[in-house]
């Protein structure tokens, strides 16, 4: 039982870390603010979510877990509102969404930066 829990916590934390890092990588690689929003959303939802659930499993049923659940709930309630407000502000502020026609399929600046990142 102990072993199963330990493996479960490892899996949750590591997969959360995976989503977090790939989301951050997306923030550097993707071509414009709208596509980067999707990458940031990944870190907010699955990255933070899996890590916090992993911590919940680690701490067991007590008030610490309640706090973790509350943090997760706040993040999941507020993150889409912030993202939506950002998208709306960006659109009404005149930011042009990137389209494939403008570049040529790939991302010239994004790929260069992504190559240098770890």
């Amino acid at each position, binding site marked *: 039982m102990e072993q199963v829990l330990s493996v479960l916590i490892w899996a949750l934390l590591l997969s959360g870390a995976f989503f977090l890092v790939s989301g951050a990588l997306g923030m550097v690689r993707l071509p414009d603010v709208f596509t980067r929003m999707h990458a940031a959303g990944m870190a907010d939802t*699955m990255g933070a979510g899996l890590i916090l659930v992993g911590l919940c499993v680690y701490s067991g049923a007590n008030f610490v877990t309640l706090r973790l659940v509350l943090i997760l709930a706040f993040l999941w309630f507020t993150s889409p509102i912030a993202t939506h407000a950002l998208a709306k502000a960006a*659109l009404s502020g005149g930011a042009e969404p990137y389209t494939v026609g403008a570049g040529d399929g790939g991302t010239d600046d994004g790929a260069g930066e992504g190559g240098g990142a770890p």
Partner: protein
Amino acid sequence: MNRVLWLWGILFALWLPLSDHYTGLFLFFGVLACTIAVFFGARMGIVDRESVPVHLVWRGIRYVPWLVWEIFKSNVRVARIILAPRVRVDPSIVHFRASQRTDLGRFIYANSITLTPGTVTTGIVGDDFEVHAIVQEEIDGSEENEMNRRVSVLEGEAA
């Protein structure tokens, strides 16, 4: 009035474990804090169906697991796009028609769309949703229709 009591109960139920001190003085402070907060909320007229949606809790419990699974799937999808050796995105803005009748239902639907990576709600006019999608082909509408249907169920008939 019922909702005011609900709100007070929820706030106090949150306050208790967060404080974690159960002596008379602290309980008094907790009761005082919750009462003042609820009083001002009620005075400002913001304690209503939208801010305290207790009528949605039961159906919401059945909606959340499906939403989490959906979030997981789209996370994997977006991660695959990002980690591909050459980023191939085809972003575009698409329009959906939502079938919810209340603003609260539309709010939940819009937030669910935004919460699943790969789609972000950028604007709502009436029941017309403007959604920015990271890859156009993946948004064939079937998943969004499913989400739309489920949110409408969540919103409920007895409005």
